[in-house]
């Protein structure tokens, strides 16, 4: 590893080596998939696929958004309204999304078991329940890992998390970790303040120290550090970082998404996907409404969500990007049908709704059904891994892919979830 990072002509041996290492890594964890991805690479590149996850941290009450129960004692005060999709009704506080529902599908039959925030967050992000001995890769890491080869010119990280932390890359390694930025797209500490040739000289020195330490065989974290260094240097030199600058958009476009953190995040997601980033997660927190839920939703959370999400769907559609971009809306769980003594709802995982759209998903449909009080799924229940398998399928990622965890155990992509058939034509 004692090679200079950069030579005068730009491409160093180490840089080249990192590409080779990347190829080797792919051959390891995903042997079965390698051939198919090579065959499909040309096709995928033409129409590069991407996914945007709208993560609703805290657990949003889907009974008050996507699956209303007017008249039920558990129903709450919100009224359902009709939408652009035949037969689909959603909350009256989502009027803008109502006009986009012909692009979307609702899965009203999610049924999971993790009702603790951190456990639910992990489970919904990875398809696996937390396990102390193995860390599983999240959506962003899996999708970035599988699609990175379709965007060979991408210099910025393939997994971006806006306004939240997402969940990490697990055994896929820090190369696939989320690049976390705030919703203003500010990336701190980008300015080196020295000229590029001096930076190269410093990096050569740094490479010598890194290489010596790695060579002493003290464990994998020494090498992980060097890999992240390489990625950072790429970023420092990339003009693609402009994609983070939401302020470059015309003011009417910014206005359309809303002058909120989530609005800017959604707009940034569109810019990043345009640039080639295969996975963006945008975080909207504040859904842990144990008290005074209805006022919080109607005055605050739902207007912010409605404006930004509807603008994103419409914008992707108008730009012809929606057919290649999956959009997923979910939180770690939902909230109790029963309304508690503080006018709130508590954690509930047994029966709830997620929204998906774009890419290969069927549009304007509802999957599954809950009971009249919202407490039970009365059709076939779906799990986190089923949803994950469906999202991967919508992107053309093979569900035959098997990773190898660090301990040598084979791990099926999406925890071998089964595709939700009704989401596909």
């Amino acid at each position, binding site marked *: 590893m004692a090679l200079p990072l950069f030579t005068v002509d730009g491409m160093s041996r180490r840089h080249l080596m990192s590409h080779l290492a990347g190829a080797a890594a792919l051959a390891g964890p995903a042997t079965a998939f390698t051939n198919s991805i090579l065959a499909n690479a040309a096709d995928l590149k033409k129409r590069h696929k991407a996914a945007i996850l709208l993560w609703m941290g805290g657990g949003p009450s889907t009974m008050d958004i996507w699956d209303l129960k007017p008249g039920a004692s558990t129903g709450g005060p919100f009224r359902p309204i009709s939408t652009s999709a035949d037969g689909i009704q959603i909350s009256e506080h989502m009027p803008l999304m109502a006009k986009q529902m012909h692009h979307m599908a609702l899965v009203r039959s999610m049924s999971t078991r993790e009702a603790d925030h951190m456990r639910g967050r992990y489970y919904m992000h990875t398809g696996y329940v937390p396990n102390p001995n193995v860390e599983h890769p999240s959506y962003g890491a899996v999708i970035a890992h599988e699609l990175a080869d379709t965007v060979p010119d991408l210099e910025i990280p393939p997994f971006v998390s806006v306004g939240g932390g997402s969940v990490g890359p697990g055994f896929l390694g820090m190369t696939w970790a989320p690049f976390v930025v705030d919703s203003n797209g500010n990336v701190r500490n980008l300015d080196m303040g020295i000229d590029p040739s001096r930076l190269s000289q410093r990096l050569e020195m740094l490479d010598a*120290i890194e290489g010596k330490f790695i060579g002493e065989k003290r464990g994998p974290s020494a090498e992980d*550090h060097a890999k992240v260094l390489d990625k950072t240097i790429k970023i420092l030199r990339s003009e693609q970082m402009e994609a983070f600058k939401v302020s470059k958009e015309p003011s009417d476009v910014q206005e359309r998404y809303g002058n909120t953190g989530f609005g800017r995040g959604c707009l940034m997601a569109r810019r990043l996907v345009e640039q080639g980033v295969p996975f963006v997660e945008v975080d909207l927190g504040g859904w842990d409404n144990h008290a005074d839920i209805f006022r919080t939703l109607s005055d605050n959370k739902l207007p912010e969500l409605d404006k930004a999400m509807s603008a994103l769907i419409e914008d992707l559609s108008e730009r012809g990007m929606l057919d290649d971009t999956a959009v997923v809306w979910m939180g770690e769980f939902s909230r109790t049908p029963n309304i508690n003594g503080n006018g709130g709802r508590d954690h509930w995982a047994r029966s709830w709704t997620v929204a998906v759209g774009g890419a290969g998903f069927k549009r304007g449909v509802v999957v599954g059904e809950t009971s009249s009080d919202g407490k039970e799924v009365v059709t076939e229940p779906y799990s986190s891994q089923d949803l994950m398998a469906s999202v991967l399928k919508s992107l053309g990622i093979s569900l035959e892919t098997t990773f190898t965890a660090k301990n040598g155990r084979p791990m099926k992509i999406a925890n071998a979830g089964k595709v939700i058939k009704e989401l596909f034509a």
Partner: protein
Amino acid sequence: MPIPTSLVARCRRIALAIAVIGLSAPGLVPVPGLSATARAAGPKDRDADDHFGIAQVKFINEQISAGWADAKLKPSDAATDQEWCRRVHLDIIGRIPTTAELEAYVSDSTPSKRAALVARLLGDDYVDEYARNWADVWTTVLIGRSTENDNVNRPGMRQWLKRAFSKNMPYDRFVTELVTATGVNKAGEKDFNGATNFLSGKLEENGIQATAKTAQVFLGLQVQCTQCHNHPFNKGKQNQFWELNAFFRQVRSLRRFEGTRDVQAIEIVDEDWAGEGGDASQAELYYELRNGQMKMAFPVFVDGTAVDPSGYLPATMEDGTTYGVNRRRVLSELIVDSPLMPKAAVNRAWSHFFGYGFTRPVDDLGDHNAPSHPELLDGLAERFREQSFDVKELIRWITLSRAYALSSKVGKGNGVDDPSIGEKPRFSHFYLRQMRPEELYQSLLTATAADEAEDNGEKAARKKDEWLSQFIIAFGTDEGDEATTFNGSIPQVLMMFNGELMKTATSTGKGGFLDRIASSGLSNPQKIDALYAAALARKPTKKEVGLANQLLVARKGDAVGALQDVWWAVLNSNEFIINH
């Protein structure tokens, strides 16, 4: 407050630092005596059976060795003096050693010098730094790193913790004070008691968080899931959660406001509690089963010990008979008597020094989660109790163990001992781990000798909080869940490349660290040696010296500019940020 001693210590350090990077000191000691012989191997005291005459260390060594034999592992060689010295400074006082401290240790040829260094780091000379480090560690454990909760006063928490660690408060006392704390959470207020900050942010919704966190931190029990249902895969039952929660029903938090909006401080008080049924002599609470049925709960400890169900605080009637009970007080007594308390403490301490505890996660000692070294965990817990829960003694035993003195280099006979892939840790080599952000911060101050000008008080702590905040992601849930991007991610690397802290550390300004080295009487190679010693506790290799010389050429003889380049590279390296 032991101010005089710490001043002496500080003065001594300054003197030593000046001696090493003296402003005009020709012919001064060649920067740390990293002679070839000292580098080659550790001193004789590393023999497998040497335990410095401390029975507890002997016990640890025997238990760990037995684990190696069982797993057919050959442990790595001993770490070098430099590596061990760096490691023990980082782990006990939260920063790397100064060049002077390093030199003093390396040049010491007495066989028991490891014990002597641990004694010094645990002694009066370092009491402020020791307390600061452990206050940092425990602030994170007790209230997290996020600064967003209005009901928590971080300076108040920190002040209390610093005092507790500076006087080496026995661990049972420590737990009791945190669990039973009453008073105001903000320093400077009447009835200030910083310990209240452990609970002040966790009392909403009938103290659900107080219940979960108390069980997790002090007993190593994960009960949060059983709030709503019996645990699906361990023995946790819903009634146990609420019976434990019943201990927190007499506690109230009162908000003190400044002006109209901002919470100025929180006062924690105990009050009589009438119970949800209205009969204070039998004060019960109700919780809901998943099927909607309501159940009643009274205070019962996790081991099944039932407590006086009265909701009244202890009081005496006119005829002299007493009644009532302080539920939190009783809870603290039950925790202290529980075998789980020292086990949880010992496990947490072990994981601090080795990167892994005997269980994963470290705060889950439930029956479903078998520890890697059950006898060692139990035995160490018993010894900790026998030693009257003396925290510094526990640290001494762990840091003087043979396992703690092993190299991080993986040998031929222990490649399979890798907990990062999910194996049970066998501690046959030192596991690499990145510094905590607090350690990095302090280490950068130390490496640039900037801490000499820095006060060790609340102002410095706030500056550090502000710096830390760039890495904290709060999830905004009621549980105060959070994550950090200080995990080897790109933002962390960018901070190390270009952040304010690094700009200061690599500044070439007059009188700064690099300027002092550049203008010292040292030769160019000695200057490079000084940088390597300060940050990496080793000498540069020939190749590294060569590259440094190239930088000097590239800077056209601008010595301080070249030193800056080297220093930047050294501080950005894996070797610097990884505790090895």
